[in-house]
């Protein structure tokens, strides 16, 4: 680690003080966050915002209870005060932490540090997105695009003697287009991001604005969406948000251990057809959801979640792993030093299969093709989910025939996962921001085209 936010001596003092009234485990998580965001709207660069924050969170775990305090700033007095606060909630005898041993970490490499790129170039990038989007046609009424860069330097030290850290840089652009024809207005969105530097934008970043505009234009011709149960072909990339929501969250060990997951107690059972395998991989180079370590200092890893249709692993942070007597899978993530780590996905995807998108659509007599989602929600305890389709088409006689608007996919994840009967050989990843328990973290979702044999489409057609 080149940068340590707090020195080993202070880290050791804070950990020791946190354990001064007992507890099995203590940790200090220090963080420096800095970033720049800007927007172009009405062809004007605006909302330029630059910030830097520092702070730390201290936690102690004793008898199954987590005591947590966090402070803004890295003043040693404030950190020790936070440690005293958590210790003050315990009533036991002092616990001796292990001596800290620095662990080497290789952060994801960044070629061109975004903070070294002049802000004017970022503004120029937004102007390029604006022009590309508007250039798609006269019916593109509005184009809004955003640029964001963020750096998170973190240091973690705990009573097991771990002292480690990471230096994370992410960049992301997004484009949102509105197309109008008379009273009708339709929208399209695209994003491009990664755990990368400014080099991510070397290769035609304007394509995302053009794509967003084309989606909005296409939807101007959209008719009512069909209603009822039918085969649904889900697009690749961001289509993976369906798997993320309907299955991924149910594999997070906090839900599982509370019985608030339809996958609780089902390890080793068949939950999907043999053609489906899925992973969570926090190490994918340059991907949006990747980090060298999780926010508890555990190295990230590639975890096989579903192997040929059988459930093979849950996703663990340190606390939940200890409860199940297994190692952490490196999924203990936190939005910032102001939050407690909980099990979270990193980059989650359905592995490529053997079908082609053409073949899987060609086999459908009447069905729905969901290319992209506006978002979705699932209740992990019941498995009920709902997804708003932002770009969808009708499939008739094995062909994609016309765009549909206002469609929603509604169902239960156990049934839907088991109903996946084709997985495409085309594969790509997209970026997302996942919210859980009030914490938002960057996640990657991915897959090739996937077909669900039967699913409820809630349309606008009666």
């Amino acid at each position, binding site marked *: 680690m080149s940068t340590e936010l707090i020195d080993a001596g202070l880290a050791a003092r804070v950990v020791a003080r946190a354990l001064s009234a007992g507890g099995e485990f203590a940790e200090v998580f220090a963080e420096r966050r800095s970033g720049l965001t800007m927007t172009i709207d009405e062809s004007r660069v605006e909302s330029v915002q630059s910030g*830097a924050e520092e702070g730390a969170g201290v936690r102690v775990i004793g008898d199954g209870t987590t005591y947590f*305090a966090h402070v803004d700033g890295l003043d040693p007095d404030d950190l020790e005060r936070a440690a005293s606060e958590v210790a003050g*909630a315990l009533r036991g005898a002092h616990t001796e932490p292990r001596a800290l041993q620095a662990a080497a970490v290789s952060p994801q490499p960044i070629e061109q540090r975004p903070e070294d790129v002049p*802000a004017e170039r970022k503004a120029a990038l937004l102007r390029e997105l604006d022009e590309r989007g508007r250039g798609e046609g006269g019916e593109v009424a509005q184009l809004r695009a955003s640029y964001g860069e963020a750096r998170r330097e973190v240091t973690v030290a705990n009573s097991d003697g771990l002292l480690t850290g990471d230096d994370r840089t992410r960049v992301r652009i997004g484009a949102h287009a509105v197309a109008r024809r008379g009273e009708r207005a339709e929208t399209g969105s695209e994003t491009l991001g990664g755990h990368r530097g400014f080099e991510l934008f070397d290769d035609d970043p304007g394509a995302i604005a053009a794509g967003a505009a084309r989606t909005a234009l296409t939807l101007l011709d959209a008719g009512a969406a069909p209603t009822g149960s039918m085969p649904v072909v889900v697009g690749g990339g961001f289509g993976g948000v369906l798997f993320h929501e309907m299955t991924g969250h149910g594999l997070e060990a906090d839900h599982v251990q509370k019985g608030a997951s339809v996958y609780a107690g089902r390890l080793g059972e068949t939950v999907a057809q043999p053609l489906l395998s899925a992973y969570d991989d926090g190490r994918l180079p340059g991907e949006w959801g990747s980090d060298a370590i999780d926010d508890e200092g555990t190295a990230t890893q590639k975890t096989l979640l579903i192997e040929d249709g059988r459930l093979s692993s849950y996703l663990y942070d340190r606390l939940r792993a200890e409860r199940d007597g297994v190692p952490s899978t490196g999924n203990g993530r936190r939005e910032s030093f102001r939050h407690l780590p909980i099990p979270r996905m990193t980059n989650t995807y359905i592995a490529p299969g053997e079908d082609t998108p053409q073949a899987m659509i060609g086999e459908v007599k009447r069905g729905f093709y969901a290319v992209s989602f*506006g978002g979705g*929600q699932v209740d992990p305890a019941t498995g009920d989910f709902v997804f708003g389709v932002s770009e969808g088409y009708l499939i008739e006689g094995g062909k994609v025939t016309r765009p549909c608007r206002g469609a929603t996919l509604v169902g239960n994840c156990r049934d839907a996962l088991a109903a996946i009967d084709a997985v495409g050989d085309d594969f790509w990843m997209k970026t997302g921001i996942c919210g859980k328990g009030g914490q938002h973290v960057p996640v990657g979702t991915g897959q090739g085209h996937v077909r669900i044999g039967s699913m409820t489409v*809630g349309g606008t057609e009666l």
Partner: protein
Amino acid sequence: MNTRPAEGAIGLDLASRAVEAAVAVGAGAAEAYAGEATTREARVYGGAVESLTAASQRGVGVRAWIGTRVGYGFGTDLSPDGIGEIAARAVGAARVADEDEFAGPPESAGKMPELAGLSDPSVGEWPTARIVELALAVESSALKADPRVVAVSQAVYFDSSDRVAIASSTGMAGEFEASSCYAYLQALAEGEGSRETGLGFGLARGPAGLDPAAIGREGAGRATEMIGASKPDSRSCPVVFDPTVAASFVGVIGGAVGADAVQRGRSPLAGRLGEEVASEAFVLHDDGLVPEGIASSPLDGEGVARRRTALIETGRLKTYLHDTYTARREGASSTGNADRRGYRTQPSVSASNLVVAPGSAGFEELLRDARDGVYITDVTGLHSGVNPVSGVFSVGASGRLIRDGELAEPVREFTIASDLVSMLRAVQAAGAASRWVPFGGSVSTPCLLIAEMAVSGS
């Protein structure tokens, strides 16, 4: 536990120094927002404490104008050097922004209103042990309410004491304090081979204002009443929204009346000022001064006095919500709706508290008037399911059938679809009893009877 920092750090003095720092490094005008929050949270599970959190946050955000360019900088380092860096970030950001002839700080705040009741002493007075007891009481009340409640996946108590100071180079200066708290739980019920979840919640200015038993009972009731739910038949029929569902939709309407969305052509209510957009049964105000509303404050996020604004009355759209910038764009006055979520975000137009006027109908009367329809108790996917430009929506829903004017069997896994203006015009009646709901912002609303809506089930 308590991590309250030394007194006196956050106030007008600090905000004024940040303004001066920005002017010193090239800002023609500047504004600073200094904010501090002390928060506590208790999470319980299975009769034991899962986690206890104590936290303090403080920081400064600066808006700097150079001519008609504006930029924003923020940070947590409140030393003189740190303030200087925050100011420099804001000025640097302003240099990158394009010119905007309407950009500029508010010129006058109006008289700062007297607003009592924003802080409840019980937030500071209740020790940690007592808030833990409250959270445990929420959980146990749900478990005791009905034998079919098998678990509570989470019961949470949270409180916050906030202090805000705003100063500008144009002479704005104001500060205030407020407290708030909430508790909620998610109950799990099982029966008839199905498993259901139910949310119960309460919010207040301090823990003394919460009723833990009622919160637990609500979660238990919502979970158990869904046991045995099936898919309803697809049809077009009357629906009754419970206050949580009504609030979610009102929140979307609150976004659509924001002048920023309107001016940028991203609102289904753009260009409809003075037009009939709702039935006369639907009356909506934005009220930044009602003490029960969590969003109330004497000043908005740029120091302009909060007020009460009629949005929809006698079915007509009366006004849009403005901050200083959107008001200048059309020669209007700010309605005191510059919102900000702390020092990390710059102000933008947003509703404060949205208040739907109660009607005269009791709940039974609404059901009788609906006769055959669906009582909707939960909607999901509102963020993805509403097209914010056209107002067309299709969202997932669950609730109970209404048969012969009475509640009948539970239904789930269906969608309801319409567009916002059609829905508002179809509001047939508002219930007599309102409730504060933290969904869709801060909303007070009764049940709403909608004469017709498309329901897609099987």
